[in-house]
């Protein structure tokens, strides 16, 4: 968009790992519990307590590293990052400094400008801090309340290389990351609940310059959209400053959603002298080939690969493949259906149409629905076999969605079976012909489309159960 300056963006993502218990103690990680009810001497940092590492958190980090093409460290350890804040009970965060579990990865994102490779510097494991609730706004508050439920929830910190060039790429990078973490089922990536958080570094430099410009750190963006907007705003602000020969100050800026601008947090940041040193209360990690292999074997097919396969194997249009591979559960649902009902496009239409409509209406998670791929396939076969009409199928589908019942049973229970009996339909058709002499006249005068009206009348009479093709044919034959 601008020829003179090149934008350099790096992102730091914190993703909560979806373990049952915290990283260093056996407290629950459940979101939304009453304040301080998920705490114990260890996560409260009481004197004398010690951390013991949750193996699943390490497994989750390793699988994330593998999915993002990282090297997995054969030797790793934890370090203490020391700083004072009321939400940090030990006044140090157990994190990883010089030996992260994963490093040197990359992902490829696609924007309108083409495919772009974004390096991943490192992924390390650390503990989350608690939550501060200010009485009033942070500036005018008379005090704050601390809830330590979140303290010790495992986090993967994913740091990108400064390879991102546009806010759109940043968004795509995040989308990719989110989708991948969801596919791996290591994080639910819920930004509203804070299980995915992102800070950004952004600087500008003249095209062709090797040296990076002064970078600004952006914080407090609560959605991908906010991140894209904040980066775009900052890009514009910095360009304007540079064009006016003003110096960019290295600082942290916060995104103000209501004002749609970034605001300097200058003076609110301490000098960062974290005094990292190896955490003596934990022992080192050694990840051998066997452990790595075990996890590699558990690596699911990743979104980009799946998308391509869906296009190749099932002849799905790109749009359909995008929508259906957006979530692993949706893609699994699709493949379960297709394994028993061969017309993939029909399955795709039902999933993108009725299924996602209900999911959105009900704000449900896919895994919480009662419908299975097998049930959908069975219902689609019933349409093909003229057991039910496509219209009735929507009613049947809804019933399966909510109850998980067999479609055959639903049709039987509710009497939704299609009427395809020649005699029964003929008498209905004749009845409608008798009742609509003027319409018949129109048709005879060449208004063929009016047949549709008559078919509709029969459908209405039968509450949608009449076989519409048969009815249509009968009208055409009888009104010649």
């Amino acid at each position, binding site marked *: 968009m601008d020829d003179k300056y090149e934008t350099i963006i790096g992102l730091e993502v914190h993703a909560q790992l979806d373990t049952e218990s915290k990283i260093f103690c056996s407290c629950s990680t459940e979101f939304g519990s009453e304040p301080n009810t998920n705490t114990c001497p260890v996560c409260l940092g009481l004197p004398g307590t010690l*951390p013991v590492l949750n193996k699943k958190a390490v497994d989750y980090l390793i699988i994330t590293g593998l999915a993002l093409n990282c090297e997995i460290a054969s030797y790793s350890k934890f370090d203490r990052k020391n700083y004072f804040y009321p939400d940090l009970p030990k*006044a140090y965060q157990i994190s990883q400094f010089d030996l992260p579990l994963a490093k040197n990865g990359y992902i490829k994102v696609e924007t309108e400008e083409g495919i772009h490779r974004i390096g991943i510097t490192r992924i390390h494991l650390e503990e989350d801090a608690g939550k501060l609730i200010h009485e009033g706004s942070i500036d005018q508050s008379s005090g704050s309340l601390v809830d330590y439920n979140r303290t010790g929830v495992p986090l993967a910190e994913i740091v990108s290389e400064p390879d991102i060039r546009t806010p759109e790429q940043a968004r795509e990078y995040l989308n990719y990351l989110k989708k991948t973490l969801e596919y791996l089922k290591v994080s639910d990536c819920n930004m509203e609940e804070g299980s995915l958080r992102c800070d950004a570094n952004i600087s500008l430099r003249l095209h062709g310059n090797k040296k990076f410009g002064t970078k600004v750190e952006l914080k407090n963006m609560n959605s991908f959209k906010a991140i894209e907007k904040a980066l775009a705003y900052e890009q514009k602000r910095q360009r304007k400053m540079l064009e006016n020969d003003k110096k960019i100050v290295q600082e942290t800026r916060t995104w103000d959603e209501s004002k749609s601008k970034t605001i300097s947090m200058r003076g609110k940041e301490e000098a960062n002298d974290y*005094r990292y040193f190896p955490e003596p209360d934990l022992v080192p990690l050694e990840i051998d080939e066997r452990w790595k292999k075990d996890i590699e074997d558990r690596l699911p097919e990743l979104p980009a690969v799946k998308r391509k396969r869906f296009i190749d194997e099932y002849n799905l249009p790109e749009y359909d493949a995008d929508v259906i591979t957006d979530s692993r559960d949706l893609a699994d649902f699709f493949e379960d259906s297709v394994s028993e009902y061969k017309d993939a496009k029909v399955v795709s239409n039902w999933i993108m149409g009725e299924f996602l409509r209900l999911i959105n209406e009900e704000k449900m998670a896919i895994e919480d629905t009662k419908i299975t791929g097998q049930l959908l396939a069975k219902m689609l076969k019933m349409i093909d076999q003229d057991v039910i009409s496509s219209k009735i199928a929507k009613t049947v589908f809804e019933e399966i969605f909510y109850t998980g019942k067999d479609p055959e049973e639903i049709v039987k229970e509710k009497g939704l079976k299609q009427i395809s009996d020649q005699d029964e339909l003929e008498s209905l058709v004749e009845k409608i012909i008798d009742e609509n002499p003027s319409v018949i006249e129109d048709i005879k005068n060449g208004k063929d489309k009016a047949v549709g009206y008559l078919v509709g009348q029969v459908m209405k009479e039968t509450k949608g159960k009449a076989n519409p093709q048969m009815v249509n044919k009968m009208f055409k034959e009888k009104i010649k």
Partner: protein
Amino acid sequence: MKLYKCSLTELKNMIEEKRVKLQDIHESISYRTTSTDPKIKAYVNKNEAYNIDELDQKDYKDTYLKGLPIAIKDNISIEDINTTCSSKMLEEYIPPYNATVVEKIKEAGGIITGKTNMDEYAMGSSTENSAFFPTVNPWGKNRVPGGSSGGSAAAVAAGMVPVSLGSDTGGSIRQPASFCGVVGLKPTYGAVSRYGLVAFASSLDQIGPLARNVEDIALMMNVITGRDEKDSTCVNREYPDFTEYLKNDVTDMKIGIPDQYFDIEFDQEVRESVLNAVEKLKKAGAKIERVSLTGAEYALAAYYIIATAEASSNLARYDGVRYGLRAAGADNLEKMFTETRQQGFGEEVKRRIMLGTYVLSSGYYDDFYLKAQKVRTLIKNDFDQLFADYDLILSPTTPTTAFKIGEKRDPLKMYAADIFTVPVNIAGIPAISVPCGFDQKGLPIGLQLMGAHFKEEKLIQAAFSLEKILNLDIKYPALK
């Protein structure tokens, strides 16, 4: 014979043989404490939670410790009993959980008589750094008992309790044991769980027993060693029955005497007493040889970097938010933090926090902390090599006998009191201090035996033999 004068083993035997009532033992102990502690001030807090009259009704028959009394240093957590670390910071703090050693003692049927005085947060060598009061050495009322486990050593020496637990980061069990004429053992790092021990320097701290004889030390080691799933650094291995090693036999035991340690200038009477013990060991069949070891002054220098660095981080959690002291009247967070810590910590603690923060701060890490960790490697390798050829290494425990209260004002001079004990913690090996004589003032002298990792049984065997060979007549200190 007065019951309070009996050792833990003697009391255990008497109970097992039903020669005495548990109640009588506790009454004798209680009487001795009531009459003696006002002069010694070994206890910070006596456990009033148990009722002597009810003791006999409780069933300690099948337990190892039979309901016998044990005193515990006030940096070890006991549920619902103040754990102060002899600091104003924690004067009101009541832990909601038990340290693992406390659980083990309770399971073994031990009765905790109270919490003993110490240098604040275990930082010191005289117990003068207690925020409450100094403890007096039972051997001379103007003498310090050593530190930091001064209360634990003095209580045992004065017959207020047969055994106690202390903690040893740089000599804090062995040095007071030496000053008070009792036996003190610092186990191998990882032999005893640190869970519930308020951390001073996590990579150096170990809990260990103090007693009036080696036999009781063996008994206590049977109770407190072993893997703990709450402490990642506590090693999973089988421990022997240490009482099996109470044999009067040093035949063919190879004991090294490091030149570098005896080259240090230290008290002549201490030197003579230690060398006299060496001669007697030789006569008893031990093979004594001069060996070479990295100078203890390097270990001391490394110690004051590593210990203070870890302490600066471990003591950061005392911020007035969750427990302990909070400075009154601070109207903002920053003030609350800094004033709480100003008021809650004593001078020595502040000095060490300052030093530790300095050595970890930006730009100094490599020069100090990393360097110290490298020296740690040298010292550890040195010991490892020696222990390939030698069973034990022998030295004085301390350069002098107990000094006068108020005598040492200069911190560096105070730190030098730890010169012989500190290398052991740096290398993570076990060591025991046993009385080997008295100086002309009548103050006890201690001899230190150091062993290879997890070779406590050798320490116990040699110390037991030495005790028998020397056959010191350790009278109960007069105190009048």
